[in-house]
């Protein structure tokens, strides 16, 4: 893949920063007064260095996606603050939100669900431009074609529908839509999961190319530790709504301090070795 991660700059002023971010989900039973409280986020302090790829790892239900939704301003945190380019943004009004949203974009895991099945590829990519009033009429289509080319899709496919694309191509479409508004910050919520290895590598290379051409900051949410180890500049480990450890991947993978990080790494190794044994067993 030819990816170097050591030469990236050290932490400057963070592009995005959270302090004491907390979010609870309360479920009420309809037949009793009992409440079930789920602490999705507990006092999350996270700093995202500009131009870097920060990876967020953790088991299912550890709060990764809730954190992503809060950072993407899709959900409001209960407590704590989010700073973006130095400004507090978690308590913005609708008007401020409208100017902020284009700068923060998200690419989802389920590429089929993330694209409106009734729209054509061109309409999908042009959608944010139209919503934000950045282009109209013929320009929308032209811009959509340019963006398709930029993510490695043929502009001839501009009238195809999502169901006529492969999984990897759909993810490229989703990326084209995400960069259409020229954001500064891109959240990749398990965007590489569910793709086969070679497609994963292609999409990853595309993302890394875009990172340099568009000066993008990434937050990659993943459960694939080997992938994270290769591409991340920083890693944050989450468990039960808390960030239990963060640092460079070299440090975290070589000397995990928190027991949960060690568990994660071990379980990863156990699966790998089990996979190898199974393969060896199948061949003999």
């Amino acid at each position, binding site marked *: 893949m030819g990816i170097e991660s050591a030469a990236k700059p050290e932490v400057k002023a963070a592009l995005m920063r959270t302090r004491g971010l907390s979010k609870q989900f309360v479920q009420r039973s309809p037949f009793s007064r009992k409440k079930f409280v789920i602490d999705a986020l507990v006092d999350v302090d996270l700093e995202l260095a500009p131009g870097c790829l920060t990876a967020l790892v953790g088991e299912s239900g550890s709060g990764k996606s809730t954190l992503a939704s809060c950072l993407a301003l899709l959900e409001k945190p209960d407590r704590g603050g989010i700073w973006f380019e130095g400004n507090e943004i978690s308590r913005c009004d609708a008007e401020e939100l409208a100017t902020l949203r284009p700068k923060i974009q998200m690419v989802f895991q389920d590429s089929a669900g993330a694209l409106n099945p*009734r729209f*054509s590829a061109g309409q999908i990519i042009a959608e944010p431009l139209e919503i934000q009033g950045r282009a109209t009429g013929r320009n929308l289509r032209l811009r959509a074609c340019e963006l398709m080319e930029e993510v490695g899709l043929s502009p001839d496919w501009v009238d195809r529908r999502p169901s006529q694309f492969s999984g990897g191509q759909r993810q490229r479409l989703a990326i084209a839509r995400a960069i259409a508004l020229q954001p500064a910050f891109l959240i990749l919520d398990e965007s590489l999961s569910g793709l086969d290895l070679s497609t994963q590598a292609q999409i990853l290379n595309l993302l890394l190319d875009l990172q340099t051409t568009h000066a993008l900051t990434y937050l990659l949410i993943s459960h694939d530790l080997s992938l994270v180890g290769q591409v991340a500049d920083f890693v944050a480990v989450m468990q039960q709504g808390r960030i239990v450890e963060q640092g460079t991947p070299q440090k975290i993978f070589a000397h995990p301090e928190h027991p949960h990080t060690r568990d994660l790494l071990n379980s990863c190794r156990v699966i790998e070795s089990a996979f190898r044994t199974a393969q060896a067993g199948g061949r003999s």
Partner: protein
Amino acid sequence: MKYLERRVIHGILLLLGVSVLCFLFSDLAPGSFFDEMKLNPQISSETVAALRSQYGLDQSLPVRYGRWVKSVARGDWGYSFAYNAPVRSLLIVRARNTLLLTSLATLLAWMIAIPLGVWTASRRGRWEDRLTMAGTSFFLAVPELVVALGFLFWVVRTRALPAGGMVSVGFDNLGSWAKLGDLAAHLVVPVTILVLASLPILVRHVRAGMLGVLKAPFIQAARGHGIGRLTLLFRFALPAAANPLISLFGLSIAGLLSGSLLVEVIMGWPGLGPLLLEASVSRDIYVVVGAVMASALFMLMGSFLADVMLVLLDPRVRVE
């Protein structure tokens, strides 16, 4: 349009099946229109037998069915014994009245159900949503007949609206605007009953469909692009939730038809309902068959309409 052609052929086959079953079941029922005449001492059994053979009732079932199909192909739907008139002219007037009632009720029910369902879905879990859900549960649980009788009771007590029939006495002497007003006043009660009966299911389906779509990542993505609330709900979410609703639209026409038969009888609305009831009781067989066929035709037209809408509105169906 291969898809629509296939649908039309299915429809024709279905109508044939309905007609066969209609004949079969009416033959299984004991007695015929002329059996009551046998009890009358003034009518000789020869006369009854002559009438039976004149109307072809002495023939075997397959022969009668064959004759019926042939005459329907010529546009003749048979003859009503009770009304002493051709079934066709009888049906046309009745079917027109039923269509007026049901199409109005369907249109109104959907015009309320779509905004209400979308709105409650967007306010999920808040008091507006809970209140609407409680209301729809109530009307789902209470039988249509009780709603109809309760409403009728109120109308009769207050005398606010005409409580039955389709037009007032002396309708023919009114001016054209007054005629329209009179008809509209007579429509209020039956249409309201029909709407109340079908609305809860429609609202719940619209709401459930919208809730499913609103969770989809592409809706989250659109929110992330800073889309307006109404555009999101009506331009993005509603079309994505529309396909099952369009199929439901076809079904709702069918449901309203069967519901309207009941309401027509209660309200004395001169539609297919009372006609079918009277004809069944007096074994006026060709009227029964004709009315059932007309209902089946409406039902098919409803689902055909839904199919056409699907093709027009969903680019994916066209591609396939």
